[in-house]
């Protein structure tokens, strides 16, 4: 692949268009609804392919853009406009799911701790393979969980070994504490590498040679 050395500065991402998203998230296309509900099948298969991309899922446990309905990560019994009698379904566990999909980089951050979250995103991008970052990111408009998460978010135990997938799963299943940090990391070949490997011996398409099979 051709690598073009380009140094981007924040200025390059600036446009004259004034952002009008709600400053809480604006997580259209990158939220818990997109990844854990309507797009969950795609998340699963992107993970299984171990494509070298970093997925940051902004989880606010609600549907903010459509104004406050329940989400796959909403707690059981949660009352919203679409669950006036409380959520009847169970709650989706993003970290545990990513671990059982054998995702090669699994981490959780919190938008109220931007420095730590930025560091995790950087590590995810440096990681070669599919990296999954669960970014707790409260919705100040429809479901403000800042206080609750300030209390539940806990740094991952200092002695946690990020190569221990089973231990990581144990931490992920702890619903009392929300551990922040790298749960699991393993470098292994990606599908895009394997696909490039397949076409190492590639040759120009030869129509005459190809059609000979039908002669």
């Amino acid at each position, binding site marked *: 692949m051709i690598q073009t050395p380009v140094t981007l500065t924040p200025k390059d991402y600036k446009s004259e*268009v004034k952002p009008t998203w709600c400053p809480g998230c604006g997580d259209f296309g990158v939220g818990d609804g997109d990844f854990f509900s309507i797009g969950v099948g795609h998340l699963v298969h992107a993970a299984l392919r171990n494509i070298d991309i970093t997925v940051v899922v902004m989880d606010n446990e609600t549907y903010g853009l459509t104004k406050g309905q329940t989400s796959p990560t909403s707690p059981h019994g949660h009352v919203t406009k679409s669950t006036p009698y409380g959520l009847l379904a169970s709650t989706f566990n993003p970290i545990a799911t990513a671990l059982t999909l054998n995702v090669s980089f699994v981490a959780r951050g919190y938008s109220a701790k931007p420095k730590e979250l930025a560091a995790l995103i950087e590590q995810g991008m440096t990681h070669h393979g599919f990296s999954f970052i669960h970014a707790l990111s409260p919705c100040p408009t429809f479901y403000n969980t800042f206080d609750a998460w300030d209390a539940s978010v806990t740094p991952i135990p200092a002695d946690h070994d990020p190569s221990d997938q089973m231990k990581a799963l144990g931490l992920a299943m702890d619903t009392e504490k929300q551990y922040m940090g790298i749960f699991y990391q393993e470098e292994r070949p990606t599908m895009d590498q394997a696909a490039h490997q397949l*076409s190492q011996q*590639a040759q120009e398409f030869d129509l005459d040679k*190809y*059609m000979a099979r039908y002669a």
Partner: protein
Amino acid sequence: MNEITIRIGGESGEGTISGGDIIALGAARWGYHVYTFRTFPAEILGGPCMFQVRMGDQPIKSMGDYPDVLVCLNKEAYDRNISELRHGGVLVYDPADFTPDAGDFIAYAVPFNEIARKEVQLFQTKNMVMLGAISGLFGPPLEAIVQVVESKLSKSRKANPILMEKNMLALEIAKKYVTQQLSKRDPFQLGPVEKANRVVLNGNQALVAGALAAKCRYFAGYPITPASDIMEALAKELPQVGGTFMQAEDEIAALASVLGASFGGVRSMTATSGPGFSLMTELIGYASMAEIPAVIVDAQRAGPSTGMPTKMEQSDLSFALNASHGDTPRMVVAPADVADCYSLIIQAFSMAERYQMPVIFLTDQSLTARVESVDRNAFKPMEIEGRIKFEANGSSANGNGAFQAEHSYSRYAYTASGISPSSAPGPGAMAYVATGLEHDERGHPDYEPEDHTAMMEKRYRKLDTAAEELPKPQRYGDEDATIGIIGWGSTEGTIQEAVDRAREKGYKVAALHPRILSPLPDRTIRDFIRSVKTVIVPECNYSGQLANLLGAKYGLQAIRVNKFGGIPFTAGEILRAIEEVS
């Protein structure tokens, strides 16, 4: 006339279809023109199936009205098919299976089962016994069949010398049996023919060759009958030519990743059938809005819903023309025959790249599996239109790696043709956001009334440009015709044969068969309609989808001829429609 139509009826899974394929291949490689039709159940193993092959020394345009020869491998095949055998035709059967009623046909009893079991001592060779008998009774030469069997068997996982020997033995014993034990009382016999430079392949195989020749280098798909063999072939071929293949988790992902690859500048395609195409509609809207080229093959099958997965229907036209919410320009093309599957898919790539929108390629179940012998010269390299690339005055487009900020590039610039110069990621790339939101020329979200109006007009202007630039369909038949036939898709040959036969009977008939159904060639179609008194629109669907379109666009009150049982038209059926309106 040196021509014969043979139908084989049997049980799915006992070699009926593969036996038919061997005859078709053998005959074609020996120099005959061939055209096949098959119909079978969806249940993998079991259920009634039939294979029909028409062979002759002249080009063949349809599957034939009636078989001259009916070979029945069981009683059910006889019950289902005997009424379609031509008057004075031939029935070949095993007297151990059933006793035929008396009828206007010549019956030859051949003990398929006994020969396979007792003389060859391998029951699985029953279809070889059948092939030997067919060769002995009607041609094609046994050598032709032997060659195909040898080459097929040697590639098979089951290949072993004993199996090969038994197959050859079955062919020979059966041929000897029919020539020695039966006295031929029918006129159906393929005479000698000159060899010719032809290839023998089905619609999907031609489509794959075309996609590769068009430099399609990314394919993603999800398995579905009758499009899976396109996917399987490209899974094998693409890595060998530097391309990439991915089996997606569903059709949404398939088209999404195709659009991603195309955004990256690679010619990309997916292939599906109606149920999968339904899932793709959201992405069709996105591709049209973000102006990303893509070729989407819809191998139509009988619907709606799961419908009849292995049966033919031309019933996705309305859907292909309209799939997506909102006003969504796209192009729709439909191949008429096997050669077209090659050349039209190449044209589809050209159209997608030049006009930067999804192109839907409407083949159908009968054409995917139809084997035709085609002049080798029909498969030649063809020019492909590339995307119009953005050329900046400065350093951006000359590949020196300089980065251009987003706000310097009008990806969706208003142009007279509607086509805006594009840029793919890579050295010298111009940055922009390919969004499904309405946007301004630079791709920024924009909901102003005048901008949505102008952008909508720009996107649709591309169809006007295309209608001017693209080739127009040619009229077939009489210049002074009173009866016109407008068809689409895989029925062209059948319609042309009906036109030929009607003209022989003194009718004045012409046919028009547009391959590009969006944008329609308005002037050509209007002129054609005006030039005749009556227009017949034959379609294999219930609602008359092309007739509805022609009615809505041109006020045409067509005579609708619709067939929707899962089987294509015969030329005789269309000829009858011509006679009825005369």
